[in-house]
């Protein structure tokens, strides 16, 4: 029994566990994606199929759908670990808890965010987005969805101990999503007018950097409160 402290091993172990579990129950990966797709296809039905109109609203629709489908997976993020006592073991481990949390958020993004990024061309096609805007859509989703995972995980950690935490979590988290929504959709809009949209991406990137550093601290202290 040798003791070997390695932050990297811990990160990989936690990350692998969550991703493995998700792949064993594929519904966890597939359902949010289907939800994303269905929400997007509701809009043309509700507002009419004119390509020009859809093209103008595409950025907003895709991003609102992305916000909502991220929320679906969040509720489960810590729930099983809370129920079976794994969170207690995570606290009682000699590693900093933020690191395990970081791995869990990374896994959440891999399961929910990354597939959305990969599916983006399909949505762009459905919503009649032009090719310049497609690049921006993919890039904003790539930078923005991890942010959604980080911010959302704070809400999930705060509500994990509650019986019906799901709706409350949306109430806490959605207002915090607003800046991401604003800058992401604006980047896509700007791109479709063939103007440089690096500024918006840079702001999103800066927010992501701040989130990577600060969110794990908030998440782990929220989890400690929920466990106690």
């Amino acid at each position: 029994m040798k003791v070997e402290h390695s932050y990297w091993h811990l990160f990989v172990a936690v990350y692998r566990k969550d991703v493995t579990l998700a792949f064993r129950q594929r519904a966890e990966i597939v359902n949010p994606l289907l939800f994303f797709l269905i929400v997007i296809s509701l809009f043309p039905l509700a507002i009419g199929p004119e390509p020009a109109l859809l093209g103008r609203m595409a950025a907003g629709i895709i991003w609102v759908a992305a916000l909502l489908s991220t929320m679906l997976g969040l509720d489960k993020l810590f729930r099983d670990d809370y129920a079976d006592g794994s969170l207690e073991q995570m606290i009682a481990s000699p590693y900093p808890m933020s690191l395990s949390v970081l791995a869990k958020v990374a896994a959440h993004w891999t399961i929910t965010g990354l597939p959305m990024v990969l599916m983006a061309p399909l949505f762009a096609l459905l919503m009649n987005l032009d090719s310049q805007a497609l690049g921006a859509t993919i890039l904003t989703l790539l930078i923005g969805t991890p942010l959604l995972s980080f911010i959302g995980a704070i809400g999930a950690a705060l509500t994990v101990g509650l019986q019906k935490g799901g709706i409350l979590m949306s109430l806490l988290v959605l207002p915090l999503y607003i800046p991401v929504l604003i800058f992401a959709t604006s980047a896509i809009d700007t791109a479709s007018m063939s103007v440089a949209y690096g500024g918006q991406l840079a702001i999103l990137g800066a927010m992501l950097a701040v989130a990577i550093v600060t969110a794990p601290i908030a998440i782990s202290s929220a989890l400690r409160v929920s466990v106690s």
Partner: protein
Amino acid sequence: MWKWLHPYAKAERAYQLCNTLLPYFVTVTAVCIAVGWIWGLAFAPADYQQKDSYRIIFIHVPSAILSMGAYSSMAIAAIVALVWQIRNAELAVIAIAPVGAAMTAIALITGAAWGKPMWGAWWVWDARLTSELILLFLYFGVLSLYHAFEDKKSGGRAACILAIVGVINLPIIHFSVEWWNTLHQGSTITKFDTSAIDSSMLWPLLINILGFAAFVGALSLVRLKNEILQVEKHRPWVRQLVSRG
């Protein structure tokens, strides 16, 4: 800091402090709001463009400022509560939150009432109105999180964490909304330049702001007293207090 705060970590001392402070706050509230409103509503000159309808400023602006002020003091209390683990500071967070939410609601309602004659619509997606609305959501979040916990101790700490997360995000939200608004802004809205306000209007406004601040303080103190009594209701000093009448 710790030495200074430490005595007030005890519930009884904090309760006494509330009692000492409360009369001052009540007095300032009564005097300032009375003077401010009478001066502002009756004696200050009418605006050359907006006529008398601008007078709602004497309620709208103080409540808007205090909605932010209350949030910052709530966040400061939350930081104190988490860093020094002082339970009374948690209670202060819970005491301030509904008062701040009420201020935000007043600011929104008076803003809408003011918007109707000025902009021709009850609601416009103006940057300040939008940030104010989001601020209201943040208050609701803190309150409903606290009330969702059966164990109020955990609830208090969870609310503190959320308040801090909110205060970090508030500038970002505010900035992003402002920026979003300038991007989409139509020509309907004319903003005041606050520095251009005439001193005959500025003075009553300042007095009103002071009055509202004292009002928020007084309400929070009363609520804090109640929260402390609730938590400590089985302690001997509360029993003594009750039996004394």
